[in-house]
Every structure is written in C-alpha cells, then in structure tokens.
C-alpha cells in the first residue's frame, strides 16, 4: 500500500503542512469579527456608491473614532460598505446611518449588528470549551471502542492519533482563513466556528472508518494463545495474541480497502460544497470554502496520515523495547 510504503514522505508533507499552517496563523493572525470582539457592524448599500475616503472623512467629522470601512457587495449584488465601529448606542447608531445613507445614490442600511463585548468574550469561552469537550469525548470513545484491539499498540494510541489528525485537519482551514483575512479582510465569525466544527465531525468520522478496518483485519489475522496459570490456588486463563502477518501489512490492507470509500465520500461532499460556494450566495461562500479546505485536509489525513502514523509509532515502540531488552 503506497500510503504505508512511502509513509515517511506523506508524514513529512503533513508535518510541513502543519508547520506552515501554524506559521501562517501566528504571523498573519486571525481577523476576529465583532462576534468575538464586540462592536457594531453596519452594512450600507448604494446604487452608486461614494468613495471610501468620503465615507471615512464624513464619519470622522461626525466624531466617530476607531472605525474601519471595507468595500463589499451586498447579497443582491449592489456595491456596499461594511463599517465596523465600537459598540454603538441607539443614538450613535441613528446618527451613523443618517450620515452614510446620504453619501451615495439610494443608500440603504441593509444590515446592522451590534454585539456587546461581554457576549463576544463569552462566545470565545464557549467555543473553546466546546472544542475541548468534543476532543476529550472523542479520545475516550475511540479508546473505548477499540479496547481489546491488543497488539501491538493500545487503543489509546488510536484515540491519540485521531486527535493529532484532527489538529491537522483544523489547522489547514484556519490557516486558509488567516490568509483570506490578510488578503481580503474577511473576518472570523460564528459561521467560521461552525465550519470548523463540521470539519471536526468529518475528520473523526473519516479516521474512524479506516481504524475500524484495521481493527477488523487485526482480529482476522491473529492467532490466539491460551495459557493456564494457577494463581492463589485458582486456575486462570490468560489469552495472548500474535499476528500472523506483519502489522504494517495489515494496516496497509485496511487503508487500501477503505480507499475507494474515503475518496467517494469526499467527492460527494466536495461536490455539494462547490455548489454552495459557486451558487449559494455571499453569506455562505466563505463557509463553503473553509469547509472545502477542511474536507480536503481530512481526506488526505485519513489516508496518508492516520494509518502511517500508527505504523510509525508501533515501529518506534518496537525499537525502544528491543533496545531495552538488549540492555
């Protein structure tokens, strides 16, 4: 199986991807939207829009400070500006919309959102806790579902690797968002959090399907040894297993057998994402793009990271125990 044979290359690529993603995120940062930071966002659309500078000058004259104006297109395709300010009071809001509506032809405030700093802070808390909760429950479940899988690595290894794969799959779309934020000023909002959560679900599902096949093949390719030992006057039966094929080969077969499924499911998912990106309107296009990157990463990782990592880990452990026994 190519993924296992050339695992060093694939794992190397994955490591590089993870490093580059972390680098991108830490250098460019994420452009947090008002969902997280608190503040107000006003979208004003025009038939003929005024210059951006004109909007900025007018707002400054009216006494607004610390705002940012970004050109955008509203959902019906009119030219619009997104004006981000601090959390506005009712009076300030009226004042602002009065000013901006007059600036261009047929101005209209098409969206206004104001979020208090407390809500934003809480959302950050909650999103963090939710991700933490999901990750822990997945490790526990995988460790439980794969318990009794036996040699040569324990069920906790599968759980741990599921999470490592997950981190890879989440880092890639996050880095993409970071780049989009840097290049086009796109902001991280609640929709992004949801896209990441969906990637989480997809990634785990994908990894587990492969591991499930590994589990099945391990059970099919092992020999049972029963040893009876007397302990404190009681006869106890201890069962140990040895594999009839190299672990590497068993895992390789499992990856191969699930390959068609991995690819077909990602094709059907990506097809719908593409439809959403191209036709679904501006509100969800970023959402679709982020998810697309996540699904792509998830497919790569379920084939080229998860199983190779298990094999590499088991080889490393074997070496360690060999070294120990030599000493």
């Amino acid at each position: 199986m190519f993924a296992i044979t050339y695992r060093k290359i694939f794992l190397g690529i994955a490591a590089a991807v993870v490093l580059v993603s972390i680098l991108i995120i830490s250098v460019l940062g994420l452009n947090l939207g008002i969902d997280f930071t608190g503040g107000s966002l006003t979208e004003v659309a025009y038939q003929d829009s005024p210059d951006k500078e004109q909007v900025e000058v007018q707002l400054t004259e009216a006494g607004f400070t610390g705002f940012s104006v970004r050109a955008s297109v509203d959902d019906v395709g009119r030219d619009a500006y997104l004006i981000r300010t601090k959390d506005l009071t009712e009076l300030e809001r009226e004042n602002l919309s009065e000013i901006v509506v007059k600036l261009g032809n047929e101005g209209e405030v098409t969206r206004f959102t104001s979020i208090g700093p407390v809500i934003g802070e809480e959302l950050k808390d909650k999103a963090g806790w939710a991700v933490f909760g999901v990750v822990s429950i997945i490790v526990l479940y995988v460790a439980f579902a794969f318990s009794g899988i036996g040699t040569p690595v324990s069920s906790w290894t599968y759980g741990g690797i599921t999470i490592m794969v997950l981190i890879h799959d989440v880092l890639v779309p996050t880095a993409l968002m970071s780049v989009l934020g840097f290049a086009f000023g796109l902001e991280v909002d609640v929709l992004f959090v949801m896209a990441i959560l969906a990637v989480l679900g997809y990634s785990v599902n994908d990894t587990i399907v492969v591991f499930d096949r590994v589990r099945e093949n391990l059970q099919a390719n092992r020999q049972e040894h029963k040893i009876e030992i007397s302990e404190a006057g009681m006869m106890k039966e201890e069962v140990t297993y040895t594999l009839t094929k190299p672990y590497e080969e068993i895992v390789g077969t499992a990856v191969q057998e699930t390959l068609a499924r991995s690819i077909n499911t990602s094709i059907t998912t990506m097809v719908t994402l593409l439809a959403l990106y191209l036709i679904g309107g501006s509100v969800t296009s970023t959402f679709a793009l982020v998810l697309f990157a996540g699904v792509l990463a998830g497919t790569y990782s379920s084939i080229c990271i998860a199983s190779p990592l298990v094999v590499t880990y088991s080889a490393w452990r074997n070496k360690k125990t060999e070294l120990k026994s030599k000493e």
Partner: protein
Amino acid sequence: MDKEDQQTSEQSQSFLRWFRVVVVIGLIIWVGSTVYQNATAADAEKPFKLGLDLAGGSHLVYVADTTNVEPSEVSELMNVLRDVIERRVNIFGVSEPIVQVESSSFVSDSKTERLVVELPGVTDVSEAVDEIGRTPLLEFKLYDPELAQQLEALSSLGSLDSDQGTSSAAGIVSNVSLNGELVEDTENELPFTDTGLTGRYLETAQLEFAGANSGQLSNEPIITVRFTPEGSDLFAEITRNNVGRQLGIFLDGDLISAPAIREAINGGTAVISGGFDLIEARELAQNLSFGALPLPIELQSTQTIGASLGAEVLELGVRAGVVGLTLVLIFMLLWYRLPGLVAGVALLSYITIMLALFQFVPVTLTAAGLAGFIISLGMAVDANVLVFERMKEEYRNGLTSREAATVGFKRAWSAIRDGNITSLLSAIILFWFGTSMVKGFALVFGMGILVSMFSALVITRTMLIALPEVKKSDGSLLSKLFCNGFNFKNKEVAKKSSSHLDNSTE
C-alpha cells in the same frame, strides 16, 4: 418440503420483500406530500420557520439585572419577564416573534441572564426598541429610616413630607405625595429597600379617578392595580408587618408615590397616583395591563437584516442545494450503478425526512443551517458508500447480489456505528455548550446523523434486498449493474481505467 412448496415460499418471500419496499416508499411519499403542502399552503399549521437572516428582521438582546434577586428565583423571574415581553411584542403585530431566555452557561465566570427578542419583518430597530421600552418596571419598596439617616448623613437630602391623603374601606393605600426634589433623585439614593413585590404579581391595571373613591374634590386620575392571588398574599403580609411605614411605588426606577401604610390590606389592590394628567395615566394603565417588568432590563445588542436580502439568500441557498443534490445523484448513479440508484432514493428520503423534521420540531432555518444541510447531502451518502464498498468485495468473491448486500450491511455496521456515535457525541456537546446559533447548527447536525443512518440502514437495505438476485459470473446486464466504476464494457478495461480511484480491485 417438495419443490412446489419451496417455490411458493420463495414467491411469498419475494412478495414480502417488494411489499416492504412499497410500504417504505409509500410512507416517504406521504411524508413528502405533507411537507410540500405545509411549505406551500398559505395557512399551513406547520410551515418552515425561517430565521431572521432569511426572513429579515431585528434581533435584540437584553440583559436582566438580577443583582437584587435570590439565585433560586432567577429562572422563574426570567420566565415572567419573557411572558411580559412576549405579550408586549405580540401587540404590535409581528408574525411569529421569538422571545427566549438565555442564561450564560456555567463555563463563563459571570452569570448573566439574557432575554433574546427576535422580530421577523421589523427592520427598524428603533421602533422595536421603543415598543419594548414602553413596558413599565413596577416595584414596591419599603421606606427604611435607617438607610434614610445614612443617606442623610452623606448628603443633605430633601425630607420626606408625608401628606395624609385619602383612605377607603376597600383597602386602597392612601396617597402620600413626596417632596418634589426627592422624586427627581436617582433610585439608588432613595432610602427604600426591596420587598419582592414587583410587576410579576400584577394582574390588571385600571384607570380611575381619585374623586370617585374618596369624595375628594380633585378629579385626579389614578391607576388601580390588582395583584394576582400570590401577590395579594405578599402585599397583605408586607402591609400587615409594616403598618405606619411608607411603601414606595417605583415605576421604571422612579419613585411615583410613597403612601403610608395605615393598616393591613387584604383586598389585593393598590393605587398608584403621582400627579399624572389624564393622557399619562391612560397610557400607563394600558402599558401596565400588558404586564410590568419584574426585573430591570438593559439593551445589550441589536441586529437587523433587510427583508429583501433574506429572500435572496434563501433562493440562492435552495438553488445551490438542488445543484449539489443533482451532482451527488449523478455521481452515485454512474459509480455504483443500480445500488447507486437505490442510494439516490435513500438520499431523497433523507431530504424528505429532514424537511419534515424541520417543520414539525420545529427547527428555525438560518443561512448557516441551510448551508449545513446542503453539505450534509454529500455526507449522508457515506453510510451507503461504506456498505456498497463492502458489498462489492463480497460480490466479487462470488456471493449473489442479495447475499453480498446482507453481508455488506453486517460488515459495514461497526464502522457506521463508531463513526456516527462520535459525530453524535460531538453534536450533543456542541448543543450543550453552544450559544443559540451553534445550538441550531448542532441540532441539524445531530438530526442529520440519525436520519442518514436510518435512511441507509432501513431504506437502502429494504430496497437492495428486494432487487433480483444475480451473480457476478452470470455476465448478464443486470449482474453488471451491481458492479461499480465508470466503465461498463470490459472488466479488465474497467479495472485499469478506474484504478487510480479504486485500488482495492484485486
């Protein structure tokens, strides 16, 4: 068993298999037609519930000040608050407003109680804010001489000058007007303590004239409020225990009047009078009769979405869904052939059941929810794909199509189970921790997992097993329809051309 018997039993089995298919498909069609009627009929009982971002409207978040309330009472008070605001919102004719209480979860440090108000169709926030702001906050507080002395020590305040007014046998508290200066002071500086008697115990409010009750000459408009039975008991208790003290009546934090309690009042009515003119009094009575706030609230965030945009987003989303669905159906049909067709029917059933759940639960559809649903179309076929891949292996090894299907389902089960349980656990956790928007997503996500499992395990299975039984070695057209890949002609060619995707071909 002779041959004839065997034949009849086989016939009846085959009949039974097809009968199941007819039942399943019939049920799905029935659900589908119900969904369609609900979605299109103007007066449907259960239409789709569209979120604000699709329908347009305002979203307001209020924070309730619960500092002076016993923690155990908070949730009940919030429910009272919700009912009051709901009544308030209902009177200005918004279709299907949503008013709900949202507590900050236990993970955050500060415990805050919020009231979320969603007004579909109202795109003028100021109007909405004003309307809700008209709901009065009514509080009854006792005059506290000790506190008064402390306050007096702090600053030279105006003194309370009691002016014994009217009293009546009906148990109406006599009116005591206050020194004008004092009324204008802020609430915090007034020497009054909470009694727990608030607008939550209000039943009705009525405009009356002072003269009618007391025979006084001035025809001053007053408002008679009647308490609920609980409130009456509380009021009686307060008045009984505090005879001689002053009971301050506060409206929106301002002291309106502070009559002295002359005797225990058991009738359950009180009078608010504070030099209102007729119009003021009528308005106040009206506002009070819709309910008074049990807690002070403050507007924390607002959001408006234009109505025309919502419709546009919805239309684009539906179009994307239809295109995505068509592409998935085509792919499944080309790759998995006959089983692919079955998976297509199962996918259509999945959509039907999900839409029915959206209507009947009901789930409020937002742009994000819609996007999540569209993506789930791609993921929902996963269980089918898992089964078909297992089935393919068995079929190639010489089992008949039906045997292969049965074995395929059995073998794929552990993968389907583990994959879906972890996803379901994630959905539950998200629902538990999430804010309202994430909650909606988690709900759709979780429902999608369960329904897609059902569609694969029940619908796909029923249909797949009812299909005629063939073997790969038959070489007939039908037997080829159970194979997969894009090439129909020759096994070897098919293998080569699809080997980049299908490496498991032996």
